[in-house]
């Protein structure tokens, strides 16, 4: 369980994180989404106790970063952004080092290291120097060191950056698997990733939390609208008159062959395509095209982070 309470962190005059509060429950994968420089990494570094905030606090399983920083780090697995590792060490030596510092009993270390090498598919790389590894393998070593002590909470910064599509799928599967029992907070700026991996998404922009919810909730939140476009032939005026109240005509323009192109918005999130069809028949008209487009997570993201203005 990761709890963040009213966190504020300033670097000089820039506010990196502004009164952010949230919680990640065990068995939950929470995606931390935001444009670059929004404060994701800063928040994660505070949770890990790498830096301290000006105000507010973070807790892991009830242990406070101010009172018990070492205990907090014991309960966390952390994958830093850009995966800095000790390049001169071999994968096995590095994992042994982390296991020792993590306080795993000496006799359990070889088994634990082997298990991590298995889980993260590092078998072929086990005795290579870390400097020889490709980006994808480095990322897996980073994940292995974060998991080696079987922590109840994981903080993963830019987990899939630099991986190829098949590696991304594999890592996502692993995260979902781990997320069944652990509390996982992972940051990304890729919407699709958050959409496919997370139970819940936090959207952060300019240091503030601007949105929160499941991928589905957030998409629905996008002003809650769906857009219908259709081409109608017949009495267009009668048609618009008889439209139910939750529809609004955005524009209507006579087109070729007597068809009128129309765009309607609907404040209701239920699919009303059939109603539109029935109405057309009722007014004696004809349809040659009808489509419905729901607001996507992307629309929400752009709207919440005001990236759409650019």
């Amino acid at each position, binding site marked *: 369980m990761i709890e963040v309470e009213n966190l504020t962190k300033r670097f000089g005059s820039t506010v990196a994180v502004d009164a952010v509060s949230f919680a990640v429950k065990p068995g939950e994968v929470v995606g931390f989404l935001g444009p670059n420089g929004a404060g994701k990494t800063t928040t994660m570094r505070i949770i*890990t106790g790498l*830096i301290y905030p000006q105000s507010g606090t973070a807790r892991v399983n009830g242990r406070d970063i101010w009172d018990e920083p*070492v205990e907090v*780090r014991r309960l*966390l697995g952390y994958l830093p952004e850009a995966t*800095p590792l*000790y390049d*001169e060490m071999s994968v096995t030596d590095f994992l042994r080092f982390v296991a020792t510092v993590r*306080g795993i009993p000496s006799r359990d270390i070889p088994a634990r290291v082997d298990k991590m090498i298995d889980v993260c598919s590092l078998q072929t790389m086990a005795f290579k120097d870390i400097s020889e590894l490709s980006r994808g393998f480095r990322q897996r070593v980073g994940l292995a060191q974060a998991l080696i002590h079987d922590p109840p909470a994981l903080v993963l910064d830019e987990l899939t950056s630099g991986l190829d599509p098949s590696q991304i799928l594999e890592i996502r599967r692993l995260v979902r698997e781990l997320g069944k029992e652990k509390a996982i907070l992972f940051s990304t700026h890729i919407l699709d990733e958050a959409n496919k991996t997370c139970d819940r998404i936090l959207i952060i922009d300019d240091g503030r939390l601007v949105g929160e919810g499941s991928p589905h909730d957030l998409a629905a939140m996008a002003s809650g609208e769906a857009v219908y476009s259709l081409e109608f032939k017949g009495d267009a005026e009668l048609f618009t008159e008889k439209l139910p109240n939750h529809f609004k005509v955005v524009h209507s323009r006579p087109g070729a062959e007597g068809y009128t192109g129309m765009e309607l918005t609907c404040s209701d999130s239920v699919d009303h395509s059939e109603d539109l069809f029935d109405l057309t028949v009722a007014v004696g008209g004809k349809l040659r095209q009808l489509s419905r487009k729901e607001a996507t997570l992307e629309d929400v993201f752009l709207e919440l982070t005001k990236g759409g203005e650019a």
Partner: protein
Amino acid sequence: MRQVLAIYRKELRLYFDSPIAYIFIIVFLAITSWLFFRTFFLIRVSSMRSFFTIIPWLCMFFIPAVSMRLWAEERKTGSNELLMSLPLQEWEVVLGKYLAALTVYVVAIILTTPLAIVVGALGSPEWGVIVGSYLGCIFLGAAILAIGTFISSLTSNQIVAFIVSVIIVAGLTIVGQPLVTMFLQGPLIVLVPYAEWLGLANHFSSISRGVIDSRDIIYYILLTTLPLYLTVKSIQASKVG
């Protein structure tokens, strides 16, 4: 303690897995032996005095070369991010790293003991003085290394860490020398005992006379623990910034 040991082993491994430690030890031995034997057969005295008088001046350059990477490198590569996310207290990391660097230096010093054997074979030196001098070498090195560690914790640039450490150590060495104290004339003459007390090499030369004075020991212990304490503080401070 297990944590300190794990950090110690890791650092030692990084020293000895890369050429740094070997280059350091070989160059150190080559220069000390050359400077020693250059005059040894001319003076024809079975003493290691000429060897020990150059040690403070060599340490001024050699030890900052060992300590410069301790923190600066981790900051540069970002691996301190990973290191500090492990359940460690700051002092455990500082101590582990420091002891590893100290080991490299002590190994170099131990490898100079064949010189003592040569001196012993060719004559009958005062062994008390030689043992005292070696002890002095360790104390002197420990203090310089602590200063270098502190400077390294302030920057992410190894070269900067090296140069600043050399300047500070040189300042501390020279301040007690007649070169400086002779300029403290008139009312400034009251500063002379302080300048002499502060001088790194002065305490070394009194230990290497074979006299173990508690004041010298206290001086070195102070000069070792204070920079290490400041290192811990600087790392803690960098988290709040």
